[in-house]
């Protein structure tokens, strides 16, 4: 009997010849990623009574959640992290500088997300690194402190599901529409505890950025991890940037899946996740014409150059509607600089956009784009939970970058195919 991707990786890392769903294994992660929550994690770590972290080269800390610090409390938090990094000799630390960015974007750009690696991160969207064939998953602060102290973490070997995707995207439909459609179909717990493998000819055609969008949102259907089999595109992306050795691990052809879903891209249309759950998905047509107060383009889901390029193509030479604010936050400074060189930022600013520094600020209500009560935001983020962007009386609609741009242009929720 063959093994799925998750079974193969976990068996290998646990030193076993085979494992099955339900088995508990203990492994040493290849990397452990944290962001601004490294400060509380460091305090929990110290409470354990261990002097030094297990391996200062395997820990990556990236400041992104509230950068630059919006309050003195956030500033103290960052200060505590810098002090901890210094005293522990943590090798990979990314401060609030122009070589930083949103943790998941930067982690991939810097070549930490590698095929066959087991990666844990103290952030639920750590599942993004599956786009490179890694087994990556989110954990809590105490669990990360325990990893720092012991270099070990337990996993229950997950059941696996496969999502086979064929066909090609129709005009105006993107990877974000696909993943929202899947989440809407199977529900916010449709992949609870499961390992999700994205396969099929369409996935092979997808860019690295599109694969990251898919894997990023696996947590929104409850998945433990999401993964795309590495190919030439993956290896060429990693060429010269991979930090360390890696081994491509692929599911066996005769592996056992609990469920197999099939999608054909040619049948898709632009969709929206309506407030206040990510699986409240419907065709964009159903909410067309709803007035928006804020349009937000950015986050670890859709803040890459490709996403900004899509928006710029729609907004070039046009002006966003009166009464709407367009906030653009590139996912990293590398993205920011590329978008600057390509003239994308100029196009967006000429259209009326406010371009903020790379970071997570508005996505979870920290700063730079908080909503007022009663306001509606159309967003490329991954969550539309009540209160997510700082106010429980506001509403968040999740869509693709094209739909954000089209809606900013008209001031009401708009099908991007009408303005392309």
């Amino acid at each position, binding site marked *: 009997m063959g093994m799925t991707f998750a079974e193969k990786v976990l068996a290998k890392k646990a030193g076993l010849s085979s494992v099955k769903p339900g088995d508990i294994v203990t492994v040493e992660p290849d990397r452990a990623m944290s962001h601004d929550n490294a*400060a509380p994690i460091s305090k929990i770590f110290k409470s*354990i009574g261990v002097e030094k972290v297990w391996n200062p080269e395997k820990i990556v800390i990236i400041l992104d*959640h509230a950068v630059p610090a919006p309050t003195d409390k956030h500033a103290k938090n960052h200060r505590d992290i810098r002090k901890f990094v210094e005293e522990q000799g943590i090798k990979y630390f990314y401060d609030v500088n122009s070589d930083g960015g949103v943790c998941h974007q930067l982690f991939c750009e810097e070549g930490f997300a590698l095929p066959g690696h087991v990666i844990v991160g103290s952030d639920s969207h750590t599942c993004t690194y599956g786009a490179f064939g890694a087994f990556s998953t989110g954990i809590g602060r105490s669990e990360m402190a325990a990893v720092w102290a012991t270099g070990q973490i337990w996993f229950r070997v997950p059941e696996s599901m496969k999502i086979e995707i064929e066909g090609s995207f129709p005009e105006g439909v993107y990877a974000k529409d696909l993943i929202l459609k899947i989440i809407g179909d199977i529900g916010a717990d449709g992949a609870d505890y499961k390992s999700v493998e994205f396969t099929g000819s369409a996935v092979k055609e997808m860019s690295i950025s599109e694969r990251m969008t898919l894997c990023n949102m696996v947590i929104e259907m409850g998945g433990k991890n999401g993964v795309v089999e590495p190919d030439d595109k993956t290896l060429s992306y990693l060429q010269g940037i991979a930090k360390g050795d890696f081994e491509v691990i692929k599911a066996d052809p005769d592996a056992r899946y609990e469920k197999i879903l099939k999608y054909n891209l040619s049948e898709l249309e632009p969709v929206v996740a309506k407030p206040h759950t990510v699986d409240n998905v419907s065709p964009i047509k159903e909410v067309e014409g709803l007035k928006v107060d804020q349009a937000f383009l950015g986050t670890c889901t859709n803040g890459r150059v490709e996403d900004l390029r899509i928006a710029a193509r729609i907004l070039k030479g046009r002006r966003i509607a009166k009464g709407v604010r367009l906030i653009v936050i590139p996912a990293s400074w590398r993205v920011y600089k590329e978008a600057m060189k390509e003239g994308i930022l100029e196009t967006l600013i000429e259209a009326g956009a406010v371009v903020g520094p790379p970071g997570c600020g508005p996505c979870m209500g920290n700063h730079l784009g908080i909503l007022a009560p009663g306001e509606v935001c159309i967003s490329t983020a991954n*969550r539309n939970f009540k*209160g*997510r962007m700082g106010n429980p009386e506001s509403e968040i609609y999740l869509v693709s970058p094209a739909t954000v741009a089209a809606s900013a242009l008209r001031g009401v929720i708009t099908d991007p195919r009408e303005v392309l």
Partner: protein
Amino acid sequence: MKVKGRVWKYGDDINTDVIFPGKYTYTVLDLEEMAKHALEDLDPSFAKEVKPGDLIVAGKNFGCGSSREQAATCLKAAGVGAVVAKSFARIYYRNAINQGLPIVQCPEVYDAVEKGDEMEIDFDKGEIRTSKGDVFSFSPLPEFVRGILEDGGLIPHIKKKLGKS
């Protein structure tokens, strides 16, 4: 181990943002203060009226969303004795155990209780008794996981293992 208390009842997909809002994650660190914000964006009456030992009964996928463990810590700090749900989101399940917050997956309880009912959970027997006289059984947590809960959470458990306690 047994817990007994009044029931607070909520629906499906109760996410980490409504249990503990993201805007407080770097500014509210004190346990007492965290308890005051528990379930703030879902039910503002909860934090004001919750009593030690009270139980939360919820639908499916409780704790979906963020890896923010304060969504477990704040309920424990508010005195919640246990959360009984139809199912739990994976990261929340781990976080709750790691924070020493007992959780029980028992889908049948949901329709049998109302807000304000009394309920008793016997973790050793794997049994829930409601004030209406209904009795439900649930599969006990794996032994490995019970060990973490019995030590009061992951950190005390690790300290014990490393001989630091």
